[in-house]
């Protein structure tokens, strides 16, 4: 038993954190927002060069062949920095879906390009008010094409390809679609998160290639969602921790009624509780990251638990960080708002708490008992 990251993983975390601190400080984020940018291209290139994009892509397709925990380490740093790159969409979602369900030819086409960062991918699952993963997707696959609307899709302005959740004669499936086709129309939406653009994508008989292993295997698709969710848990943990220390530092500096704001029990206890929530969420993420690769039977429960605790931690952290900053926190010049908005993105993108609660409860042995 060893419940800690390996030395190489700690080094990876340090490297990622250092890079992001250097290339993606808060002022850079403000610059990107002001420039209406959808991505920090310089950062994306740097991240690609260090091999982060290929971390969990197998070596034969140009990746490093590392595991979910290594990817989690990077996701956590992305969350800490609220990094404006399509790491989640392209690597965590699209690359993993292709690696899991794609045939050799599909992997050959897409994985090296995703690993190098030359192509950006995304995962198109939500269908407006019908929900984030509507039972019996409204987008249909027929005769090698897909039709219908996906909205909202994150980072879809940058993406050249999408893995699309669709139905094939009523059974669920995933398909790879080239977004540069003229049978695909993208409409940019007004996005709550100023650092992650969202689009509605209309597919009009757009050429698509089914990821065969996904067809009609709903549980396998759910497992993919579990794996993705583990990464968002790491991302949320990174964000939450950033908020805790940002708030702590501010409170140590700020004097109020003749003493540091940090000396007030209301502030101390608030931050203690959020720190506990964050450390606990990290512990669940660790296990879920380990289970992603090592214990498939545990994954559904582990991913659900990680998701629930990470969502709770980041929600509290993002809100109370701003509160502790007081008036200054409400200004664009302060750094609280990046997290305040990103937290909602993470909380909403991959299903509500209720989905994860249901999934967790349904997987615990003994919960299928009959009523007495």
């Amino acid at each position: 038993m060893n419940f800690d990251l390996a030395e190489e993983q700690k080094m990876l975390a340090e490297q990622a954190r250092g890079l992001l601190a250097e290339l993606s400080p808060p002022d850079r984020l403000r610059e990107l927002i002001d420039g209406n940018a959808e991505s920090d291209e310089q950062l994306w290139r740097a991240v690609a060069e260090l091999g982060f994009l290929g971390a969990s892509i197998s070596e034969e397709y140009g990746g490093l062949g590392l595991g979910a925990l290594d990817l989690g380490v990077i996701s956590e740093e992305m969350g800490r920095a609220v990094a404006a790159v399509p790491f989640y969409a392209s690597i965590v979602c699209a690359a993993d879906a292709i690696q899991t369900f794609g045939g050799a030819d599909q992997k050959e086409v897409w994985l090296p390009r995703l690993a190098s960062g030359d192509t950006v991918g995304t995962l198109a699952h939500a269908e407006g008010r019908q929900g984030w993963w509507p039972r019996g997707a409204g987008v249909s696959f027929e005769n090698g094409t897909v039709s219908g609307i996906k909205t909202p899709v994150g980072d879809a302005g940058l993406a050249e390809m999408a893995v699309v959740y669709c139905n094939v004669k009523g059974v669920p499936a995933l398909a790879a679609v080239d977004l540069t086709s003229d049978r695909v129309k993208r409409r940019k939406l007004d996005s709550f998160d100023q650092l992650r653009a969202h689009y509605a994508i209309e597919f009009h008989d757009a050429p698509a290639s089914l990821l065969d292993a996904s067809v009609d295997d709903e549980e396998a698709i759910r497992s993919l969602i579990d794996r993705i969710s583990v990464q968002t848990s790491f991302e949320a943990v990174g964000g939450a921790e950033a908020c805790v220390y940002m708030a702590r530092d501010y409170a140590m500096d700020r004097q109020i009624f003749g003493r540091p704001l940090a000396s007030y029990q209301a502030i101390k206890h608030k931050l203690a509780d959020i720190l506990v929530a964050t450390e606990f969420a990290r512990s669940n993420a660790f296990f879920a990251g380990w289970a992603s690769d090592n214990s498939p039977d545990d994954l559904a429960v582990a991913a659900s638990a990680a998701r629930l605790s990470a969502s709770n931690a980041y929600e509290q952290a993002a809100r109370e960080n701003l509160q502790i900053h007081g008036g200054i926190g409400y200004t664009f010049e302060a750094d609280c708002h990046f997290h305040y908005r990103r937290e909602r993105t993470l909380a909403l993108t991959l299903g509500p708490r209720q989905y994860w609660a249901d999934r967790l409860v349904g997987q615990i042995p003994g919960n299928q008992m009959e009523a007495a």
Partner: protein
Amino acid sequence: MDFNDTAEEAEFRSEVKAWLAAHAPAHELPDGAVLDDSEEVARGKAWQRELYDGGYAGILLPKSLGGRGGTIIEAVVFDEEERKYNLPKGPYIGIGLGMALPVIGKHGTEDQIRKFVEPTLKGELTWCQLFSEPAAGSDLAAVRTRAIKDGDAYVVNGQKVWSSWAHHSDWGILVVRTDPKVVKHKGLTFFVLDMKSPGVDVRPIRQISGASDFNETFLTDVRVPEDCRIGAEGEGWACCMTVLMGERLNQGEEGRIEELMQYAAQTPRDGATALDDPAVRLSLATAYAEERAAKYFQARLRTMVSRGENPGALASMMKLTYASRLQKTSGLAMEIRGTDALAPDSDAVATREIWHDYIWSTALRIAGGADEVLRNQISERVLGMPGEMRADKGVPFDQLK
């Protein structure tokens, strides 16, 4: 106890209804209209003038000051009826009536009263407040902006923040330090400031919402005539208390939760709607119960006021719960709607209102008494618990760290 109008109240209500029916429609804003700031101020002034002519400006203000000298219940009735129209009401009017006039009325000279009260009631003068500073928020008495007497004027230097609509205000109410040699509360003095004075530089603050309703105001060698001082030197803290006391009770809250229930009902889920989900119902019903409680609690406070009792820190309870509830429920509403609430492709107006609430709630939890300050007040003033241990007690301002 009687939640219905008394005969007198009913009469007043029908009088108000009739007056509003005759005068309000001409001033209504078109639905969803976004006016530019000057246009909005102009319209707000016009409606205030209408109110004045109708005898409804300053319902609570004593007759001696040109107000109506009405009861709080009358003010409530008027407010309830007025809200049925979409009228231009803004801080540029509200700060004058709710903050500037009470303090001028109580601490000002006859001349000052004559000069400011009637024009403000008529909507001719607009006001902003210049209280908070970068290092003086919850701890208002920590203001550093200095005023030094120079002949028949004071020379003021410093920086104020969180003044709403300062760029469209004629006058500001200003609190500054005139004596740094005494403990911090005692060295403060209150002024009214002509916003067109040389040295007054108003800059918008860029907010996280994207808007800039608030300003920073830089004061550089601004000369404020002695006759703009309200009360004596050192009376500034007492003036602030007068202002802040008035602030709490009149904050009307709008009910939000019914709208959120409808938002949930318009979110399909598993062949039904999100409002059919028991967990959603439990959360929204709990919030709705709290919202209603706040409404009846406010009614109890108004009854106290109408009897001449001072609800004091009880009024803090309203604001404390409102701000947190707004944050919690707007966040929840986004989750109920799900991914679509991140970037709506339909029903975008409702979703954007929820975004607005989720962002604005962060300001509300801070402005006009942060959550933590309000809890201190409630525990100390209502429950009689001891005050915080203070490191600044009895220490002259200029010797504080």
